[in-house]
């Protein structure tokens, strides 16, 4: 993102480049805007990492506390703010990694996807129209298969985690994911997204 977020009535148009100096100067309003623009993404990262919702809230607070205390060390020339924030969030998560209630149920690689800043390979590969087409295809999936897809790709669960959440065997999870892939592939071909 190159602008502040849209949450909590924050100024959506003020460029992040202007917010950061204000945050450094101790402007509480600017800090709230910067927080509102990134907090959901960071919270999603902690949830997809397997932390409990209450713990995820605490970790978000801790992450932004560190961000604002260390904002003086952030150098825009060395990378985007989102990447810098992602590094701090990963460090915060790493220190609490052992406290996750179901460590084997969540895929760390998928969890990291949500922190990927704009311009990353996934985002480049997946254009807006393609994602909208995929969303439409997913909405046409049978409910039990759509749920498996949601548990896997939105919640970022491992096959074991999906099986535990859905109450079905892991083999069934794999079969349903394979079925989902086949259906989505056909649907996206029909839409011209896949050749």
């Amino acid at each position, binding site marked *: 993102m190159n602008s502040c977020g849209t949450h909590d009535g924050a100024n959506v148009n003020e460029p992040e480049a202007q917010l950061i100096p204000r945050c450094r100067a101790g402007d509480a309003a600017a800090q709230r805007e910067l927080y509102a623009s990134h907090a959901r993404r960071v919270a999603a990262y902690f949830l997809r990492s397997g932390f409990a919702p209450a713990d995820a809230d605490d970790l978000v607070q801790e992450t932004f506390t560190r961000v604002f205390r260390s904002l003086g060390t952030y150098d825009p020339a060395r990378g985007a703010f989102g990447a810098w924030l992602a590094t701090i969030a990963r460090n915060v998560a790493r220190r609490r990694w052992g406290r996750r209630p179901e460590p084997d149920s969540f895929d760390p690689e998928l969890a990291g996807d949500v922190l990927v800043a704009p311009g990353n390979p996934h985002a480049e590969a*997946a254009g807006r129209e393609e994602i909208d087409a995929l969303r439409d295809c997913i909405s046409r999936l049978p409910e039990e298969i759509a749920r498996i897809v949601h548990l896997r790709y939105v919640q970022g669960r491992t096959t074991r985690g999906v099986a535990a959440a859905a109450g079905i065997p892991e083999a069934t999870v794999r079969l349903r994911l394979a079925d989902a892939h086949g259906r989505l592939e056909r649907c996206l071909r029909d839409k011209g997204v896949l050749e």
Partner: protein
Amino acid sequence: MNDEPNNTNERLERLLRAWGAEEAERTAQAPAAFAPPSAGRPRALTIVLRWLPAAAAAVLLVAAAAFYRAGLQAPREGTTAGLRPSTSRPTTAADDAELRRLRRELDVARTQLAERDRRLDGLAGLPGQLTDLQEQLQRHEGEAKKLQADLRAATKAKGDMANQLAAAETRLTVLEGEKKALAATAAELPKAQSRLADVQDRLAAAAREVEAARKRDEQVVAELAAARQEAQRLAARHEAAMAAFQRTYLAMAAPGEGGLAARKTAVKSRRMLERLAEMPTDAESEPTRRVLARLEVVLTRLELLDAGRADAEGAFAKLLGGGELDRQIDDALVSGGASPPVRTWLFEARLILTGAGHAG
């Protein structure tokens, strides 16, 4: 649109992951509003932050007081044109000096304030460091607890091992006792083996003696059987001889007669009873006299017997009592104690009675 058209699965996977990340961010519950941390702040920073506004206010108050004092002194000391155009009194050299002094003090205050800001900026990194230190401390406490638990487990295991060692030592003591007993038994074994060999030798000797005795017994039995056979053979020869003598004797004493009648005739013709009465028997032995008395009765009955009756021979044989009287006569003859006339009479009586006891 598609960088790798030949890898549809990878393409779809990337799309799903991008969609999932977007959905996750979109559907994530909005976190609570950001609350700058107050608790956990380092004590030095807390003190600085607590007194910083007061210090700044004090500096500003000093500066304001200095300006105010300079304003009060200006009418008395005159004014300097151009310095305070708003005042009616011109500034003096003293005012300039005071103003310069105040400006210097203000610069010093600003420098001190900037220095404090710089130090504050320097301290800004402390919370993060302290948080890290607290986390390290927590980790160390956790490790210490784990080590304490391990120590307790190791102490308990040590106690268990000590108990097991004591039990093993007890068993070892028992085994050593058994080993000594076995050694003693092993020492006794050669003696026992020697005694056993001796007993076995004696048993073998006894067995040989038994075998020899058995063979001797068998030999004796065989000899007895042979002797018995010889005796039977001699007895048969004796009986045959006696039968031949009897036939000759009866043919001479009772010619033309046979059986009981011939015996009865022979008693009469040979005057057996008369000759017995004529023989002196006082000098004979007691057994011989008893045989002679018995024969007197038998021969008298034979002489009186009606030989024509059908049961005459049976009744006479019953009187003789089988062959008993024959053996008594033989004993008296064999003993050699009888006189020659008695011996002759006994022999003739024996010939007359031979075979009569088994008649009927």
